[in-house]
């Protein structure tokens, strides 16, 4: 499957005066122009990745077709991170039901007044929520356990945050290159080691190999998985879902971790970057080849669009000719364990 078009909008802490529909329209227009395809007749299927409570609208699927050029066309919502939408596009194309697919995800985080309350509703209603703790406390709990088991240090995590923000200085999409706040959030997690929210939208246009021009970026392998949803029975000292997703993606692409030249991985929290690199078998990769975009720590966290932001950075770098094989990985953030991995080549 080839990447024939990319488009993005926003990537800033707020997008005042612009509705989510207008944000999506802008990214979609760019992606279709990049692909040279008319969405009204030349895109076979549309996949949007969103969750109702992120939008404040039940059945958010209702509100996506117009601004994507998808009216009276096959459209579906995947209630997950954007990379799961890319996996869906791959299945649609391989099944033969579509040869071109648009995948969209966005964040209008600035519309959500009570972010903490939205995240809290992702926790078990009977056993966890009554305790009254933030969902983000799970990151503090997991970080401590992982540091304990892996022998990694808090300083190493702080270095990740500093390096990603430093990388972000060269990225026009990054808003958080200068953030520096070592005060504790959910100890040992600090403010500067947690990605700040941002608004933004990413649209990718994907196509069957025979419809992809020579020299384009190809997505050769994709994998996705999850661990136990309940906090009572999940693994706390490794990113097991990312491991399984990576195994599937490498196998489908016919490569192994040593072939990966650079990676854009989930860094919602700095320790997650290190943990995810372990899970992907990329712990030996040169740190200057990881999240060169600045990651979510530099660009801001785009909620369900986070995986597409990593994929976009990966595609741009391959298009620039800096490397031949790259990897993008996502994780849905607390309290989720869902993770996806895409392996790309040019």
């Amino acid at each position: 499957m080839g990447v024939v078009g990319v488009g993005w909008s926003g990537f800033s802490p707020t997008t005042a005066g612009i509705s989510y529909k207008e944000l999506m329209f802008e990214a979609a227009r760019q992606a279709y122009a990049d692909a040279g395809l008319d969405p009204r007749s030349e895109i076979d299927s549309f996949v949007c990745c969103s969750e109702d409570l992120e939008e404040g609208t039940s059945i958010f699927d209702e509100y996506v077709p117009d601004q994507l050029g998808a009216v009276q066309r096959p459209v579906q919502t995947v209630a997950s991170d954007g990379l799961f939408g890319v996996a869906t596009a791959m299945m649609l194309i391989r099944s033969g039901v579509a040869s071109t697919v648009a995948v969209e995800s966005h964040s209008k985080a600035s519309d959500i007044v009570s972010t903490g309350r939205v995240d809290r509703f992702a926790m078990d209603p009977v056993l966890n929520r009554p305790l009254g703790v933030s969902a983000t406390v799970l990151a503090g709990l997991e970080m401590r356990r992982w540091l304990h088991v892996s022998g990694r240090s808090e300083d190493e995590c702080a270095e990740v945050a500093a390096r990603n923000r430093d990388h972000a200085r060269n990225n026009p999409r990054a808003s958080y290159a200068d953030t520096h706040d070592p005060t504790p959030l959910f100890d040992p997690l600090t403010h500067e080691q947690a990605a700040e929210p941002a608004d933004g939208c990413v649209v990718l246009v994907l196509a069957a190999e025979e419809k992809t021009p020579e020299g384009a970026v190809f997505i050769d392998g994709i994998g996705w998985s999850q661990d136990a949803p309940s906090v009572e029975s999940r693994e706390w000292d490794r990113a097991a879902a990312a491991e399984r997703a990576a195994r599937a993606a490498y196998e489908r692409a016919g490569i192994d971790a040593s072939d990966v030249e650079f990676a854009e991985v989930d860094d919602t929290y700095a320790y997650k970057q290190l943990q995810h690199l372990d899970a992907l078998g990329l712990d030996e990769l040169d740190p200057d080849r990881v999240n060169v975009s600045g990651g979510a720590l530099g660009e801001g966290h785009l909620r369900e669009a986070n995986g597409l932001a990593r994929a976009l950075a990966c595609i741009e770098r391959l298009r620039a000719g800096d490397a031949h094989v790259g990897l993008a990985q996502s994780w849905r953030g607390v309290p989720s364990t869902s993770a996806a991995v895409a392996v790309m080549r040019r």
Partner: protein
Amino acid sequence: MSPRVAVVGAGMSRFVRRAQETGKELSWIAAREALASCELKLEDVDAVCLTSAPDAFDGVHRKGDYLADGAGAWAKPYMRTYVGGGSGVFTAIQGWYTVASGLADVVVCVAEEKMSSCQPHPQGAFLTIFDNILERPLGPNLLWIFALEMQRYMQAYGLDKRDIAQVAVKNKRNAADHPAALLGQTDITVEDVLASETLAWPVQRLDVSPISDGAVAIVMASEDAAKRLTDRPVWVQGVGWNLDTTYWTNRDLAYPEYVENAARMAYGMAGVNEPRKEIHVAEPYDPFDYKELHHLEGLLLFDRGKAPEAAAAGVTARDGDLPCCPSGGLLGVGNPIAAAGLMKIAELFWQLRREAGARQVPGTPERGVAQAWGDLMQVGTVVVMGNDGGPLTTATQSPPPQSPPPSPRATPLSDQEFRSATGAVEQRLDTLYDWDAGEAIGAFLDGLRAQRILATICISCGRTLVPPRKFCERCFRPTDSWTEVPQTGNVETFSICHVTWDMQPLEVPQIPAVIRLDGTSEGGFLHLLGEVAPDDVRAGMEVEAVWKPAGERSGSILDIAYFRPLDQEVRRELVATATVEKTLESTV
């Protein structure tokens, strides 16, 4: 041509008003039954597909993640797809492409719904399906829009309530033979339906499917795996799905074009050229009785407006020429939303294997179609399934099993048991949002504050659009200019609402309507009628906007207080004030 994929197993929980089981447990019951029906274990499954309707029912954000272990997805590739009410049939489409892509050999598809958690009434989950800026301030609920659509369908084809009520009778009678059904009833009559409480005219209580808890699962397999697992696979021959514009007030509600589009996609893949001859059994989506008729027309199984006539002639009865909803449908078996859609796929599986027991349609049906519908009267999902006239030797040589088994689980609770259940936890879904109206709607709201109704124009398709948009959804290009349109128009369709969203009686009925403004190209927008007695409202009636005083206007859809008849003879001063005040009170 796509690789062949079959349904090889199915299972479901009983559909009940309030289940003791959690959503995870309902999912587990269905998934386990489906696996047992084809003698598989969880380790034989490569991937799990899940669907469930709004998170607001359960009050659980990221419900897909939450349900994963119940659906048997731990450590497996797992995804939740979601197209509103169309989700149940769509999850079979998801299962189909997951297998057809070659990424999995055997998948389990699970559709779960636990509506009873949502209090004081599951309709509460639907209060937030409407446009956040332009519709929600009017306080619309789900019954409004169904009533508006039903009214338009009846009016377009000159139908009577009696023509429609017969569908509820047929389906509730059919459901009496379904061991998992909530509302099977052998002795119900058209008179019972017509005598039931009016909720939002023309919708009466027995026109509506019941709120329910439940789950359904199916097992799907690649051609090789299917042949290994069973001698009676039921093949997925075609899939189709289609989503119409968000602007539901801009389309003619008399006919579901998006269902036709989805059906044409599925028939095309299945090689079905003459659906009326080649489809032998149908499970159209029937959350309301008129929807079955509406959808049968969209599925191209009857001419527009002619399904009621065929139903009256017995064509759609279980022993008719085209049995429709032999399961009992949502009206009879129940409507745990996503689960109800997948129940239709399971029913076709059982019918085409001739395992439907007392529900079995006569003859040797070889091909069926299942369809679901959802979002803002907007999405169609269609699956065509067939047995390829394949070997039915097992079924013909020995008595067919009753499927689902006679005592599928899910424990119904009375209202009192439900409220006193151990561990019952009460939480308010108190999330808060502050939405950017955006450039186009922002300017529209500024116009309302100044007592002007503004529209945008697309010169490519020539439409003048209210509500205005920054881009034309049909041409997919920016709109070109702004214009002001008259404050008069016509009532496209209307409803007389006698209850609130949580089914509390209204002293003064509300009259929501779709208003088509003069000077606009088509459709219009949702608002309320005032200064008119419910009996005097007519489709096509000319109306004008009544504005709040300048000092009270705030840049909101409520700056227009309501629309009233242009004809002064029809106006009723007292009704107006009471109706609108009542509406705004309930909104606040």
